[in-house]
């Protein structure tokens, strides 16, 4: 067997190759920078820092030479452009923050740098992470590497497309209502959003603070476990950070379950299948791939249990009131005074605010600010915002009722495979409805994953969503890892359009 090209290797394999001195981080980084340049048409990046990356790669090679055996030392990654970085501009995909330089690094960025990763650049996303196709980026769309006429999903679409196209072994993302899971599904890769509070939000440009959570997009559950282990953990700088001891997710994925055998690694794992996750509106091709994956999981020893999440459909209005309410508050900071875009023409301070905001924000961001401002305004708060927060409690309680009967919940990530670019551009509500399966776990703050389980219409990837109870990332990653050891969907790569 000929040796695999470096871009074909994932995080864990690259760590092993670097440790064995089969290649250096400088060689690897150079190779991936060349791939980014050769695949520029995909529009995955908003900034690439070649010189900075090579300097970090040289430092990583020195760390290896000095005996550092950290799994991530010298492994190239890139960050969704929602994480602020000192070395590169941080735009959130918005004209509002064009050229913005942060005076500090996000905690996630700093921790991954400490772990020895090499940061190649910043990745495209929907403006302020608001969207599910990456078409809301103010800079350019990102193309799906499986079919360049289709969207990669969003909002972490640049991250998902770059990993799928083998430009990177892993990338960070953020997930407010599905923004890691849905693009992972659309691009045929593995993504995890941990429990709210597991990753620090310090330095993550805020969209909806009670929902935003950082996570990883990579090729496999094992790779996700390695990166998530390095970026997570308590941070005193985030007031909602969970005060819990650090978790070794990588050790958890291989831990044997009681009664498990090599053939049945998931023996006794109860997987709940909510009937509301298989409605008539679920596309037939997606359902077929999911049913096959559930059968595979059962073959690995898991027990499928019928459960109910009766308020699944209600999660759409609940989320689309709460998230815009929080966004309208968070985005009030963009006033053209302290940072961000400032209009050139204005007569007074009020006009300075209005002109700067109207020029700096795109259409979807304005829509959400309008919804949020309205539902928080005098006379409407109880009917909309308070009612939504009460329903949010009921949705979280529904999950707890399920978790009395199962360990993990499984279902679709999205009702369809990735849609053609432009197909939903003028219909924001259609976009919102397509988030139905990712919103419930987001509202409850539960961890969720997407793993590739097959292909649907147009030979586009289909993802299976796994949702765990609070802080049960280890259970999710373990189940996903067992599935990936028995199947090869996660190693399928899009064919290179050009040599």
């Amino acid at each position, binding site marked *: 067997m000929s040796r695999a090209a470096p871009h074909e290797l994932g995080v864990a394999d690259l760590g092993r190759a670097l440790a064995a001195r089969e290649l250096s981080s400088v060689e690897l980084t150079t190779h991936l920078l060349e791939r980014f340049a050769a695949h520029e048409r995909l529009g995955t990046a908003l900034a690439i820092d070649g010189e900075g990356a090579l300097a970090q790669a040289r430092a990583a090679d020195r760390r290896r030479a000095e005996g550092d055996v950290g799994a991530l030392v010298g492994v190239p990654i890139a960050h969704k452009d929602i994480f602020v970085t000192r070395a590169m501009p941080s735009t959130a995909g918005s004209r509002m923050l064009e050229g*913005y*330089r*942060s*005076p500090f690094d996000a905690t996630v960025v700093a921790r991954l740098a400490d772990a020895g990763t090499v940061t190649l650049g910043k990745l495209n996303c929907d403006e302020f992470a608001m969207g599910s196709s990456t078409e809301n980026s103010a800079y350019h769309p990102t193309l799906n590497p499986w079919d360049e006429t289709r969207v990669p999903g969003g909002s972490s679409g640049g991250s998902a497309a770059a990993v799928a196209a083998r430009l990177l072994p892993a990338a960070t993302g953020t997930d407010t209502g599905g923004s890691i899971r849905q693009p992972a599904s659309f691009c045929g890769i593995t993504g995890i959003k941990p*429990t*709210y509070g597991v990753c620090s939000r310090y330095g993550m440009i805020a969209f909806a603070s*009670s*929902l935003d959570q950082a996570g990883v997009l990579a090729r496999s559950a094992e790779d996700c476990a390695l990166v998530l282990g390095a970026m997570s953990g308590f941070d005193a700088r985030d*007031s*909602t950070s969970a005060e819990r001891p650090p978790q070794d997710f990588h050790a958890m994925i291989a831990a044997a379950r009681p009664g498990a055998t090599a053939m049945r690694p998931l023996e006794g794992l109860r997987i709940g299948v909510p009937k509301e996750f298989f409605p008539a509106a679920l596309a037939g091709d997606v359902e077929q791939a999911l049913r096959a994956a559930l059968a595979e999981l059962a073959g690995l020893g898991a027990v499928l249990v019928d459960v109910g999440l009766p308020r699944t*459909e*209600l999660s*759409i*209005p609940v989320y*689309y*009131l709460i998230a815009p309410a929080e966004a*309208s508050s968070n985005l009030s900071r963009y006033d*053209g*005074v*302290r*940072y*961000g*875009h400032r209009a050139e023409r204005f*007569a*007074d*301070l009020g006009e300075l605010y209005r*002109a700067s*905001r*109207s020029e700096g*924000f795109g*259409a979807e961001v*304005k*829509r959400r*600010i*309008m*919804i949020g*401002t*309205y539902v928080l*305004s005098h006379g409407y708060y109880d*009917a*909309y915002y*308070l*009612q*939504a*927060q*009460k*329903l*949010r*409690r*009921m949705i*979280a309680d529904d999950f*707890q009722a399920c978790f009395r009967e199962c360990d993990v919940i499984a279902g679709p990530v999205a009702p369809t495979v990735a849609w053609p670019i432009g197909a939903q551009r003028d219909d*924001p*509500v259609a976009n*919102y*409805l397509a988030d139905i399966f990712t919103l419930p776990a987001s*509202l*409850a703050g*539960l961890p969720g994953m997407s793993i590739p389980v097959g292909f649907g219409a147009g030979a586009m990837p289909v993802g299976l969503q796994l949702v765990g109870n*609070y802080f049960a990332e280890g259970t999710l990653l373990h189940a996903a890892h067992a599935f990936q050891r028995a199947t090869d969907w996660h190693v399928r790569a899009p064919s290179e359009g050009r040599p």
Partner: protein
Amino acid sequence: MALTPLDVRRIAELARLDLDADEQARMLGQLNSFFRIVEQMSAVETSGVEPLYTPLAAVEAPHLRLRDDAVTEAVDRDANQESAPLTKDGLYLVPKVIE
């Protein structure tokens, strides 16, 4: 109850956004189509349900940490103002508010 063009102008004013006539018309249609899916929510009986403002409160009582009242980091005003549109002597400049 559908929003009116007047509502859209009022909300835009509160949100500090200028919308031109086309944007206002589009926004009105889109907001009304959105609030139609919100209606199903209003009918649900929720009296006595505690709102869930932060997700982990679903399983544990939220507690706010207090840090020691001590200086923990130096403030570098120049670095912090590097991305400011307009400053002078360390101050942010805005149009005159009081004549």
